[in-house]
């Protein structure tokens, strides 16, 4: 019977671990939600911050975050998708592919502060792009590349072989097979990967801090600087000024990221073909 008791206790502990993990998520979301919902209003979302305590809204920071994320998506997704096509469809497994994979893994694990300093040294200073949307988007796209590539490669590998054989049998060239058969079949999972990568980019702080700056500014052209939501939240929290606005920003940030992640799940569930 001792054996059965040990089993009971151990399984109970595993339940406890899982419940604790979920409870922490619940507590964090609830805490930010309860404190943040009070300040969220159309005025908070659509007006500018002003005064020493950043009263008012956070509109320019939302625009900067959306702007830079969209720009980074446009830069990184073609490169990442085509790279995945190469790895999954064209490449011979060998030293070059190994090197590319190692590079992708390394890129995925570069600490964000290192990426920030690198973006500052290369894009902002050496290339003379200054603190701008384009500098930040380039640095962010480096972070998004491995995420999108991994998702795309998995999606392409999940496309059954017989679909390719069918296309080859009709006399299609390799590119025609990839473009007309493989990529459409894998599209839903590729888009899911892109959306997840965008969610990751929205939450980045250290990277954009050194490539976009922190001046409150409504970006129009890619050469404009700005202050993204994450940096705004950081400054409000550290300086301890205007905590209600910090909670509001945190809530909007979480809602945006949850929105990205949930829509990725939704796309996958409703359009999945492989």
């Amino acid at each position, binding site marked *: 019977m001792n054996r059965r008791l040990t089993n009971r206790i151990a399984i109970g502990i*595993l339940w406890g671990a899982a419940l604790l993990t*979920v409870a922490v998520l619940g507590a964090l979301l609830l805490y930010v939600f309860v404190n943040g919902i009070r300040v969220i209003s159309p005025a908070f979302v659509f007006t500018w911050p002003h005064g020493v305590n950043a009263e008012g809204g956070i509109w320019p920071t939302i625009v900067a975050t959306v702007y830079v994320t969209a720009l980074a998506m446009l830069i990184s997704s073609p490169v990442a998708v085509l790279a995945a096509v*190469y790895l999954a469809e064209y490449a011979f497994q060998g030293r070059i592919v190994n090197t590319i994979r190692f590079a992708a893994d390394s890129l995925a694990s570069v600490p964000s502060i290192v990426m920030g300093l690198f973006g500052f040294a290369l894009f902002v200073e050496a290339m003379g792009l200054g603190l701008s949307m384009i500098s930040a988007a380039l640095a962010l796209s480096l972070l998004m590349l491995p995420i999108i590539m991994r998702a795309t490669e998995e999606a392409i590998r999940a496309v059954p072989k017989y679909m390719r054989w069918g296309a080859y049998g009709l006399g299609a060239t390799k590119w025609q097979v990839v473009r007309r058969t493989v990529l459409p079949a894998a599209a839903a999972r590729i888009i899911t990967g892109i959306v997840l990568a965008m969610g990751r980019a929205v939450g980045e702080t250290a990277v954009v801090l050194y490539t976009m700056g922190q001046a409150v500014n409504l970006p129009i052209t890619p050469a404009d600087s700005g202050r993204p939501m994450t940096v705004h939240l950081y400054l409000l929290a550290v300086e301890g000024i205007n905590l209600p606005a910090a909670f509001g920003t945190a809530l909007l940030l979480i809602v945006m990221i949850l929105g990205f992640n949930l829509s990725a799940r939704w796309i996958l569930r409703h359009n999945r073909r492989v």
Partner: protein
Amino acid sequence: MSPEETRSGTKTLQLVSRSTYVREWILQALFFACAFVFVLAVALIFVFVGWKALPIFTDYSFWKFISGTEWSASSQQFGILPLIVGSLIVTLGALALGTPLAVGTAVFLSDVASPRVRKFVRPAVELLAGIPSVVYGFFGIILLRAVVARFTGTLGFGAFTAWIVLAIMIVPTLAALSEDALLSIPEGIREASYAMGATQWQTIYKVVVPAAKIGIIDAIILGMGRAIGETMAVLMVVGNAPVFPKGIFAPLSTMTSQIVMDMPYAVGLHRTALFAMAAMLFVFSMLLVASVRLLSRLRD
């Protein structure tokens, strides 16, 4: 795709018109260029961060840099030993707190939970992984710091608060990766164990977890990389004092947090020292990736 198929693909290409052949070749070259962007990006990071960090060898001394115990911009002393120690304390403590919780959650998801419970817990864990680090830091500085401060009579900044914040942060990543490792264990192994009369717990800790050992170690290494490179959340709760901490409730600094604190006003040698720390973090993260790859080669 296997080499045979590709070779026969090349043979068909010779049957198509020259323009098609050229187009196919150009496209393949373009795809290769895209894939090569990854290698180029890593090389560029290495070269640029390294180039900015290089004067630490010529204008300072690398030995003084990594073994010095005083970090002070005003007296031009850039010893990062306290920062390395700070990073290690914070990372190892967070791993010690987070790993049991994460592996427990992963085992729960793969072996204990019913499909209905799983369907609820798994997305929750994944969503937790998506929350940005600045929000964790915010949560830490506003709520956790205040709680720690009340119980200890300190300001609440320090290793202890950072451990909890970081542990919460790395649990989802660790749990998701460990669960993948556990799910890749064939069902037959579990069934064999049950057939021998083992209880569920005996099956888990004598059969399933040992079989997934390398995958779980991979997860812990990657979690460690995440923890040591984590910036914003740590920065907001450690208190930022570049000294050896006098206990777990005293302020300290990590390599990442010191970079953010000093970057706005750092010039000359000071900035070089910051880039040198970034270069060390980069090399360290690449070493972790390399060790994961080595481990997976061992497993195969």
